């Protein structure tokens, strides 16, 4: 989009996004509340005594590996599963016991679940017809939805006459048509190829802003969650591990699990050597002759075993020792190089065999890398690059 109007909208959206943080406001009333919800399937506990608040107009992502309970959590909101214990409220109303067809939520299915015997138009109108909406109003709403997803020309086609991306849009339009209080998206972009997926992620965000609706997305793709969501809940074994904004999840993970699941990370086992206000000194097993300073309040005590999480892009790999004595420096040899085009990933082997990954943007066009296999290198990072994890 290059015209002025579009740019202006983008800016407004950016402004709204920056200021939007109802979860920090103690006065804000959550739209969706999971209260001590447990769901068991026979012996298997899919969701384990979980409580979560989601606010109006929020784009909320449930992120986790398959089998972590994220889909079950969403399906309980849609009404396809009933919680074994606990309560789910939507806008103050208890949903437990309400069948799916009486809930003000709509879902976009992973398989899209388009009705094969109905045209695109009829698919989108289906939900409106169930509400016995007046004919003219249905037509108007369907046209509006078709325009929103840019499928005006395809209204008469059947789902099997559409490409994957078009089907995905029909599914989105159908689930938005009834203006639900919450739109549930179950791995909505899983079937699309990478380029289309990235485009669609931004479109989803725009649509969510434009309609001012609450979106709850389930995904196992951390990049997708980071891109679209206001807040992300990282789940494991039916529990929430961390719920926060994408940047916090990425930069300040609260556990090894989150650090490892979201993005690429080097985790070094270490012991706490000294504690000062706002700083901690570690002794990593991988580099026992080098104290590592981290600028962070640390709840651990001296002598405790902790983990130091370092993102690859925060490590610098150089042939000469860094001039600044305040940065942490480890020495090692280049074990392997991964050339990705935009980045080069250097795998550096530290003296006692532990390997760390460092990502370096390829700022200039060079076919020959200045740093190559078996070179002795210095891996350096600033005190605020790493995160000390106690769990």
């Amino acid at each position, binding site marked *: 989009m290059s015209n002025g109007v579009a740019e202006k909208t983008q800016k407004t959206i950016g402004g709204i996004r920056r200021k939007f943080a109802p979860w920090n406001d103690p006065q804000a009333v959550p739209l969706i509340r999971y209260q001590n919800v447990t769901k068991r399937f026979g012996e298997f506990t899919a969701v384990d005594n979980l409580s979560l608040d989601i606010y109006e107009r929020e784009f909320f992502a449930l992120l986790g590996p398959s089998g972590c309970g994220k889909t079950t959590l969403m399906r309980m909101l*849609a*009404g*396809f599963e009933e919680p074994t214990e606990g309560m789910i409220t939507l806008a103050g109303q208890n949903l437990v016991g309400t*069948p*799916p*067809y*009486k809930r003000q*939520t*709509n*879902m976009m*299915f*992973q*398989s899209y*679940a388009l*009705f*094969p*015997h109905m045209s695109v138009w009829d698919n989108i109108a*289906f*939900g409106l017809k*169930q*509400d016995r909406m007046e004919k003219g109003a249905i037509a108007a709403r369907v046209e509006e939805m078709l325009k929103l997803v840019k499928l005006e020309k395809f209204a008469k086609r*059947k789902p*099997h*006459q*559409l*490409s994957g991306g*078009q089907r995905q849009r029909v599914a989105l339009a*159908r*689930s938005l048509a*009834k203006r639900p209080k919450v739109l549930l998206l179950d791995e909505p972009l899983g079937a699309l190829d990478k380029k289309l997926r990235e485009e669609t992620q931004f479109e989803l965000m725009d649509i969510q802003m434009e309609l001012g609706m609450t979106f709850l997305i389930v995904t196992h793709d951390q990049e997708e969650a980071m891109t679209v969501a206001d807040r992300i809940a990282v789940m494991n074994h039916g529990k929430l591990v961390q719920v926060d904004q994408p940047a916090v999840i990425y930069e300040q993970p609260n556990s090894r699990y989150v650090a490892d699941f979201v993005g690429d990370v080097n985790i070094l086992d270490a012991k706490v050597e000294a504690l000062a206000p706002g700083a901690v000194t570690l002794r990593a097993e991988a580099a026992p002759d080098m104290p590592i300073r981290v600028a962070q309040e640390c709840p651990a005590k001296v002598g405790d075993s902790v983990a130091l999480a370092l993102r690859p892009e925060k490590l610098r790999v150089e042939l000469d020792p860094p001039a600044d004595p305040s940065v942490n420096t480890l020495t090692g040899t280049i074990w392997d190089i991964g050339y990705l085009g935009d980045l080069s990933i250097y795998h550096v082997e530290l003296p006692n065999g532990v390997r760390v990954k460092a990502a370096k943007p390829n700022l200039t066009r060079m076919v020959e890398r200045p740093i190559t296999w078996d070179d002795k290198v210095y891996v350096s990072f600033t005190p605020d690059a790493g995160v000390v994890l106690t769990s």
Partner: protein
Amino acid sequence: MRKGLSWFNTTSIALGFAFLYIPIILLVIYSFNASRLVTVWAGFSFHWYVQLFHNQQLLDAAWVTLRVAFLTATIATVLGTMAAITLTRYGRFIGRTLFSGMVYAPLVMPEVITGLSLLLLFVAIGLDRGFWTITLAHITFTMCFVSVVVQSRLVTFDRSLEEAALDLGCTPFRTFFVITLPIILPAVVSGWMLAFTLSLDDLVIASFTTGPGATTLPMRIYSQVRLGVTPEINAACTILIAIVTVVVIIASIMTKRQEMERQKAERLAAAG
């Protein structure tokens, strides 16, 4: 298919077709025979067809058969579809194994046994044998065929379609009629056709469960043949064959056309 058939393939095809169709072709040819003697050719004639349409007994039997087949197919389709849905949808319930065993028993049960046991039942409960007992018996043994056909379709049915309908505010009852049924309809229709043809040409079970005044076409033909094969019977059979052939051809054209449309649509979709 590759071009050119080896002599082995040609022979096997020729033998296969001969084995299947020579008896039928003979029957069709002799139905146009002018002679009363079945095995002596005396020129071409429509005589026996004219004769056939004046044979009130045969016409009555045909009418009974059609009514039985139509009722049977319709009721068996409803019951068979219900059984298929129960078996595919309600995972485990008490008596599931027993139920599925019972549904499929007539599939493997010798017809004589099915017929005899039904006869005993009708006698025991004092039901007058005739049109309705034949229909009941036919429903019993055709239902399982419908159930098999519909169940195989339901296994591949995407449950999220029904969930989507519920999610959009449709009640479970309506969902079945506006989503599930239209999608599985081809299977239900072929189930109906299967039940119809099975009922149409059943002789054994009908013989056991019939009573006075209810004679089906296969029974009538069989009893007449015992008194000697007449060209009239040949004519009746030729008409039956013609009807079946036409139905089968229509059905296969419909399937073919659907398949072509689907492929066309897929090409369209691939093109964007």
